[in-house]
């Protein structure tokens, strides 16, 4: 195979590179680690199975360690390990087994809480139909492997953290494990229901810590941060952009929308950035990086931190430009600009995920909450953005959106009717030249297509016209069959026979 090697434009393409790495003979795909779809699916299942087993083994190991730790710190009167196997709460209740005395009260509060949570955060996704399979969107096996490693680390950190808490730590660990186990059996809940379960769990656990263990609100907050980290690291894969929602569709729509708005300038949004100042452009780049990084985090709080860091860089950029602290009137347009420049991956999914699984008080209050709210506003604004909001005429806006014109190439509006003035930048000159060539080509292409179409039409109508002609002729000269007459030639009447030479006679030589 390797001798069939092509060299094209400096890129070395080996035929064997294109085939499935498993050697099954089908073509592989880079997105599937060079495997064909079938082999990739098998590989993925294998890794996934392995990960489930690993997770389970680790959980057992951690549990044993934990038991040992408690046994050593609490003396021999501690419960035997066999009693601490994860409880199995009834399906339908997130974590109510050990909280049963709160159950009744919670139910009342739950109903109310749930309506408000829904009202303010997640646009309903209950109605979205559940798709059959989860496989299409799962990350590649190696990503899973890395994720599994991270998960292990998070679990270890969590146990280390809980060890310092003594008795409550033990219960928290049990609760969390039971909750995660319980959640894995609820794969087909809607996103809102998943969110409800997680939020209820947070609430129940916090209440229990406050009420039963008399923890201070400060330490509860600390614990809850750790709990969120532990739980969401494990649930991330199944609850981020779940198949039951149209999050993914919205992501694509937003991504395309932002792409179509690539021409929006600082001036149109009235952003106070002077990117000529190196320090400003540095902060702009950092802000863009931070908002893009959000997608790589798994814990809602870590995602929030990315948004906050991004926002602080924006504030710095504005402060350096304006030489005074930025107000909300400066900040929101600047954030919109950053989002347009960054086109952050899976923006809608991330917003939804944070909304559903972050501690809600963090979203509506606090500094992180302020920046998150602004990001939501920016995303909503970009969706609705029109000519007016950029101080453009509807015609200009349309031209820019359709790509017929770009505000960067030439300055004022009048230029669009007459040919654009020669740009000074050689790259732009080249670009313009290429554009001209392209438009010439597309003109010729059109003419060619037209000709081809008329040829095709001609060809199609030709047999018909021939048929018509034949028909007409047949009509004009109908075929008449005349009665057969007697043969005109009579052998006896052969007059010319005398003129004929005599027949040759064979002669013996």
């Amino acid at each position, binding site marked *: 195979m390797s001798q069939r090697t092509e060299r094209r434009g400096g890129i070395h393409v080996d035929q064997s590179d294109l085939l499935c790495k498993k050697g099954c003979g089908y073509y592989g795909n880079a997105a599937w680690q060079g495997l064909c779809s079938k082999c990739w699916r098998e590989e993925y299942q294998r890794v996934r199975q392995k990960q489930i087993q690993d997770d389970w083994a680790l959980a057992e190991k951690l549990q044993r360690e934990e038991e040992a730790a408690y046994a050593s710190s609490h003396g021999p009167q501690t419960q035997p390990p066999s009693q601490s196997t994860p409880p199995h709460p009834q399906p339908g209740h997130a974590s109510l087994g050990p909280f049963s005395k709160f159950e009744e009260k919670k139910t009342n509060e739950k109903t109310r809480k749930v309506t408000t949570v829904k009202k303010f955060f997640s646009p309903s996704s209950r109605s979205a139909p559940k798709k059959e399979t989860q496989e299409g969107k799962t990350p590649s096996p190696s990503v899973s492997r890395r994720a599994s490693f991270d998960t292990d680390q998070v679990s270890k950190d969590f146990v280390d953290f809980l060890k310092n808490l003594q008795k409550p730590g033990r219960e928290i660990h049990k609760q969390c494990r039971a909750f995660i186990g319980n959640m894995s059996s609820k794969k087909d809940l809607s996103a809102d229901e998943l969110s409800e379960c997680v939020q209820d769990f947070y609430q129940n656990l916090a209440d229990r810590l406050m009420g039963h263990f008399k923890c201070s609100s400060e330490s509860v907050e600390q614990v809850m941060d750790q709990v969120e980290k532990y739980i969401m690291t494990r649930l991330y894969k199944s609850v981020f952009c779940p198949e039951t929602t149209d999050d993914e569709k919205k992501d694509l729509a937003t991504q395309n929308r932002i792409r179509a708005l690539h021409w929006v300038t600082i001036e149109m949004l009235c952003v106070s950035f002077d990117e000529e100042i190196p320090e400003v452009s540095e902060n702009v780049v950092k802000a863009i990086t931070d908002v893009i990084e959000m997608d790589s985090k798994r814990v809602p709080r870590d995602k929030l931190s990315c948004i906050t860091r991004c926002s602080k860089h924006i504030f710095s950029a504005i402060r350096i430009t304006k030489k005074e602290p930025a107000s909300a*009137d400066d900040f929101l347009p600047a954030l919109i600009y950053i989002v347009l420049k960054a086109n952050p991956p899976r923006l809608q999914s991330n917003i939804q995920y944070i909304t559903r699984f972050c501690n809600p*008080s963090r979203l509506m209050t606090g500094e992180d909450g302020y920046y998150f709210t602004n990001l939501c*506003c920016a995303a909503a604004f970009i969706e609705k953005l029109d000519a007016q909001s950029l101080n453009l005429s509807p015609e200009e806006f349309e031209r820019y959106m359709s790509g017929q014109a770009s505000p960067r190439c030439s300055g004022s509006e009048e230029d669009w009717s007459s040919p654009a003035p020669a740009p000074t930048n050689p790259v732009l000159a080249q670009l313009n030249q290429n554009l001209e060539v392209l438009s010439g080509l597309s003109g010729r292409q059109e003419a060619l297509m037209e000709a081809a179409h008329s040829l095709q039409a001609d060809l199609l109508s030709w047999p018909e016209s021939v048929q018509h002609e034949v028909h007409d002729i047949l009509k004009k000269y109908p075929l008449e069959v005349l009665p057969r007459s007697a043969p005109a030639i009579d052998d006896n009447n052969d007059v010319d026979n005398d003129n004929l030479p005599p027949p040759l006679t064979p002669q013996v030589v």
Partner: protein
Amino acid sequence: MGEKLPQVQGDPQLRRDTLSRPVRTLRAKMVLLGSSGVGKSSLALRFCKDEFRNTSPTVGCAYLTQVMHLSDVTLRFEIWDTAGEEKYHSVTPLYYRGAHAALLVYDVSKRDTFIRAQVWLRELEKQYVAGSTVLWLVGNKGDLAQHRQVSVQEGQSLANDRGLLFTETSALSGDQVDKLLLAVAHRVYECVGAQQGGLSEWQETPHVDLRRRNHLFASCCKVGP
């Protein structure tokens, strides 16, 4: 300011709770709404002038905090400034969800900002259960007497009609600004005490004392005075 400060008279349970421990610090979210140029950002800066020096220099004045000490509680105000330009109005409801106080600011020297404030009010009333949030009408730039287009009476009677509180301020001179913040603090705290569950609409935090779980405040003690 014209009106006397509302008295703090929480229910006995609340008083016993708060007296039995060191003074609690409660979080309160306050949103500034109003047209562009009415002086929202200037007011926010005025509210926080004491703390302003302490905040990190990179942070702007869009999100500020100010601590208010009342007799038996400390409120830590989170002040959310909003972009006033009309094109952002459609997204503004995102800012005031979960707010404990909303200041509706207009410019007494510009009638259109007063009209605009009424549009905001209508919007707010759609979102709120009565009494869940302290709504305060603020006529700013009271120092511009010679350019006044909205009289004190007009502001006051709009507030009376719609059940809001009303104050005229000057962010420029600082007149009434401190008193306004203190009055808002009292009012917010009073709502907590007086309305058992009345503000639970906004109570989304799991970090709440069990007995007080229906109140709007997270009992967050992280940031002291």
